């Protein structure tokens, strides 16, 4: 078995082990750990788009919303039929949840494809704004969809998320992203990021690489959204707005764009920090924004990036 797959199996086994003992852990701590897991998936998937491929997307929360809403709709509306009147056994619940998550993830990736194809022709600032626009449009659509609760939100969503699911998917996401970036696709991503014109000039189809990164990123964002919905048990359109996208972007930048390990560490830090800073929660966002500015001025390669700074594209 190739080494990467061995590591994957070990990691999954570790997740299972942690889950086995999870009821010994304080529920609040479990809460924070689950949040960290979901944020890691979000940050790593965005890192693929922003960091590795250099496409600045500000609409990641929109994909999360699609995943959350569609997987929630699956469990709420299709669940009773699948599980039967007695609520089903853990096995059938697990199958339902997996199915719902996949539906969420795949819908998000379809959305990613539809949004990506037209948008990825744009560069830099324009792409950022178009993705922002799409994120907002998605939010407005969900807000106006009565069947999914509209402004009242979708609730109650059954609480299927636990440590095993969350960290199982964390492992899967990291595995997929890391192996993708170490493959020829990864070379394509990096080439697109470093100098798109030169890449085109040597014959790389940069549009294809951009779209692949976008779609894979959207898929995992959808999965994270599904996990989030089944964890908070109620979701609202306003929870997936521009602010949420920015929070994920900050994690990617803090971790160093294109540095998966750094991004994971940043996600852990930025999820745990608000809990620690609970007494001064009001100042949290002020601190975040200040951090962004200082980082860009002083250490643009990110806090946890110990390699070379991000490459400069041809001006």
């Amino acid at each position, binding site marked *: 078995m190739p080494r990467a797959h061995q590591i994957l199996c070990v990691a999954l086994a570790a997740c299972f082990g942690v889950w086995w003992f999870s009821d010994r852990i304080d529920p609040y701590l479990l809460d924070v750990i689950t949040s960290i897991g979901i944020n890691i998936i979000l940050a790593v998937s965005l890192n693929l788009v922003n960091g590795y491929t250099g496409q600045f997307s500000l609409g990641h929360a929109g994909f999360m919303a699609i995943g959350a809403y569609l997987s929630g709709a699956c469990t709420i509306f299709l669940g009773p039929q699948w599980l039967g009147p007695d609520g089903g056994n853990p096995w059938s619940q697990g199958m339902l949840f997996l199915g719902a998550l996949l539906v969420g993830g795949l819908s998000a990736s379809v959305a990613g494809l539809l949004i990506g194809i037209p948008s990825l022709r744009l560069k830099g600032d324009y792409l950022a704004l178009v993705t922002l626009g799409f994120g907002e449009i998605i939010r*407005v659509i969900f807000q106006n969809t009565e069947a999914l609760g509209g402004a009242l939100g979708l609730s109650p969503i059954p609480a299927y998320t636990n440590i095993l699911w969350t960290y199982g998917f964390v492992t899967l996401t990291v595995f997929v992203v890391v192996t993708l970036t170490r493959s020829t696709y990864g070379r394509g991503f990096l080439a697109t990021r470093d100098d798109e014109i030169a890449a085109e000039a040597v014959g790389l189809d940069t549009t294809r690489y951009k779209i692949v990164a976008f779609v894979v990123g959207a898929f995992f964002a959808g999965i994270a959204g599904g996990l989030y919905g089944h964890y908070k048990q109620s979701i609202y359109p306003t929870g997936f707005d521009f602010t949420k996208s920015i929070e994920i972007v900050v994690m990617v930048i803090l971790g160093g764009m294109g540095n998966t390990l750094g991004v994971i560490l940043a996600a852990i830090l930025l999820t745990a920090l608000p809990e620690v800073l609970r007494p001064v929660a009001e100042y949290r966002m*002020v601190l975040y924004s200040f951090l*962004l500015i200082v980082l*860009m001025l002083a250490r643009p390669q990110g806090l946890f990036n110990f390699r070379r700074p991000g490459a400069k594209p041809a*001006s």
Partner: protein
Amino acid sequence: MIEFLQQLLNGLSLGAIYALIALGYTMVYGVLRFINFAHSDVFMVGAFVGYYLGRLVPEGTVWGALVVLAGSMAACAVLGMTIERLAYRPLRGSPTLNVLITAIGVSLLLEYSGQVFFGAAPRNFPPVIPSARISLGGLVLSSNQLIVIFGTCGLMWALRLVVLRTRIGMAMRAVSLNPQAARLVGVNNDVIISFTFGLGSALAGAGGVLYAINYPSIDPLMGVMPGLKAFVCAVLGGIGNIPGAALGGLILGTTETFVGGSSWSTYKDAIAFAVLIVILLVRPGGLLGRPSIEKV
């Protein structure tokens, strides 16, 4: 018919405000080739400065209103130049992505500091200009709306004057065409860029005051939506193009108003973004812009 005309009027005054904010975006982009995300928050600061000044001057006097306007514009000009000096100048030459992120950071910093210092709850903007109602047949005009429309036109005309008729305006155009060549002929780029920021921010401040006069409820997040929509206007008209910003403002303002008055009113906000997306895909140069050729 009356309803149509009334909506048209509403759309004009809304569009005028968007156009005013869009001017700032367009100017900065023209000179620096980057979108100043923090512009919408300078607009918010302008409204708040106007709020504090408005409580100092007697209500309802014309000179009082002018003091509030001038004071806001001056304060925002200073703020804009400070932001440029501290956050953007050190990154000149860095990848544009870094500057974009910094701009987002500055924008968020202003918003959330505003929430901490001013509180997130909306405040009532003092009525610096008495509002009168003018009826023309079935049409109802508010004097505030007229002030906004004429104020915007006036400021745009003044801006055009500065850019086309003064030396510093010429220097600005030179820097926007080719920064290196401008430096070669003796233009001090740093000064010109600072000036551009100051001018754009002053316009944003004026926009903030005019907006607050018309909609007297101000809060630290008031700039977010108008800012985004103003940006759409700037792009619609052709970013870097001053009359384009006005045209974009007009089109978006009226479209949004007509959608808002129809049964599709819930999708009002989405319209702006849909317009942005369509324009960027179909004609990225904007309606009045020229497609630029990128030299490799």
